[in-house]
């Protein structure tokens, strides 16, 4: 089992950052290379630019602690847990952390590598919302 973790400090209120990624269907907007998504209850299927379809289960959507968790249920993984946390550091200062834990361990990096770009997009969208006064 291995973990890949990226973090980004975003100059936006925690609820603004949270609003970018709290909807399971929103992933197509902020995860580079995710080109499609369907959500059915707690089941989500994302389509990657390479054509791969990845079934997932949504585990946690907690607006109080601003945590979103999911797991990939594809047979490629013996275990997977993706966690996005938004942590309030100040009124317009949020630490966003995206962790990917997986077994086999290389799979953490194969998928987790994409989360670096996802955090940059979450920041971009959050700052747009701030600019719009949302």
């Amino acid at each position, binding site marked *: 089992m*291995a973990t890949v973790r*990226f973090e980004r400090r975003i100059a936006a209120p925690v609820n603004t950052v949270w609003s970018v990624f709290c909807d399971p269907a929103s992933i197509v907007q902020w*995860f*580079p*290379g*995710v080109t499609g998504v369907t959500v059915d209850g707690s089941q989500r299927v994302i389509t*990657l*630019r*390479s054509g*791969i379809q990845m079934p997932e289960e949504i585990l946690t959507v907690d607006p109080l602690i601003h945590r979103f968790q999911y797991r990939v249920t594809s047979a490629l993984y013996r275990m997977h847990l993706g966690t996005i946390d938004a942590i309030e550091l100040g009124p317009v200062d949020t630490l966003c952390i995206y962790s990917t834990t997986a077994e*086999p*361990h*290389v*799979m*953490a*990096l*194969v*998928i987790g*590598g*994409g989360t*670096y*770009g996802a955090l940059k997009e979450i920041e971009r969208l959050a700052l747009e919302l701030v600019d719009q006064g949302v």
Partner: protein
Amino acid sequence: MGRKILFITTDQQRYDTLACNGGVLSRTPVADGLAAQGVRYNRCQPTSVVCMPSRSSMLTGQFPSRHGVWMNGVALAPDAPSVAAELHDAGYKTALIGKAHFEPFLDPFGLFIENQLASLQLPTIDDAWPNGRRGPHRGFDHLEFATHGAVGPLHYAKWLFATHPEMVGEYFAPLDGELNVSAVGGGDSGAPQVKLNSIPREWYHTDWVAERTIAWLKSLSSDDDWFCWMSFPDPHHPWDPPASEISRVPWRDVDLPENYPESAEQRESLLDQKARHWRAWYDGRVVSNYEAPAKWVPATLTANQVREVNALNAVEVELIDEAVGRVLSEVDALGWTNDLDVFFTTDHGELQGDFGLLFKGPYHVDALMRLPLIWRPAPVAQVTPAVVDAPVNLVSLASTFMSIAGLATPSWVEGTALPVSNDDARERHFEASITEWDSALFGVDVHVRTVVTSQYLYSEYQRGTMHDGTEGELYVLADDPLQRVNRFDDPALASARSELSERLRTHMTRENQCLELAPVVAPV
């Protein structure tokens, strides 16, 4: 019309695999002929002993600590400096055919341009250049990609799948089901990453790279100036050349390498003199880097496996030499020989049995750091053939190419143009050459800086999970050409060590280094 440049690289090829460098297994008459007509470098070194950082240095003329590709899996920024862009700006037609690997291969999200271009079968796209303009991707008008085997979306894999799909599975699968570098063994000896491959030679990726290069050259006008990076994926593992060719080098007749100690006691005694990660890897306690199979223990390597790997490697080297010969014949038929500069080198070496090890990693010895480098200057330049003994580095290639094209060297280039003789090297102070290593993967990090001079090979290990910042290696090359006796703590060499350490300090404190490490976004 100016001089044209054919830049030939292989992948993971040792210095001693060419006959002109003393190799005895492979027949390499084409490379030997280029060396006889040009400049052969006796001690050429990479900036890094893995692919992505080293290749990025060839393109940018910068060390990894400047261009930012500090380990495999870190992508070179699309707008990084590029010698191809400089040449393109000067009117050169530019191509890269074969293995690029400036960006990761494992890319399920389709994030990287090399993979996207291949998927879409596009020759190039407009992209950002370092000077803020836009132009063809990294300055190349034409890109066609291949790697080890027929995997991924790259051009060669697509071509093989479209034309000879029954052959796709003949290649060794370089990654296992968990996407680790595969430890599966094959051949007669069960050596890791060895497979009998029934693909016909003319469909093998070595010949494909040569044929696609010829096709691109034929597309040019006779008065074009051009820069072509012809990049063979071999002799990097897997060792699976066409079965029709393996009788060239019968593995049972192959002598063991000079630096392969046959007894386990000898091997362990040698490894115990080195920094601790050497023995830890050998014993299977730590795999510090992705490039070695995670589920393979070097201590299990047998003498026959070393023989078979070396034999197959030699076959792959011969096939490359013959492919280069075909391309040079075509260049001659097109009337360009007199204006053509030819370079032959590789990105890094291969342990290939030395110290009882295979593959590569943070092990800075000649097996990985001493590379073949030949420059056959254009006959029109009338350069006297020479052998250069001074230490040189692949970081000098970019400025050498620009010098050939008559271009001023941009300020972002860290390497100076290669010397053409020992006198030239002396006058221009080619006294020392640096190789860097940084890796951080799944809880293990290793950081090494190495300097090589005409007398010494000296490494310092910085603080990491494997080292406490006090370890190092110091080899006296004249007395110990196989780097077996570590004299890092020898008081008799304290003065030399101090001077070598100062050279590393100077390198590590130079200006314009990357202050923040770019993220590792893929295993490779």
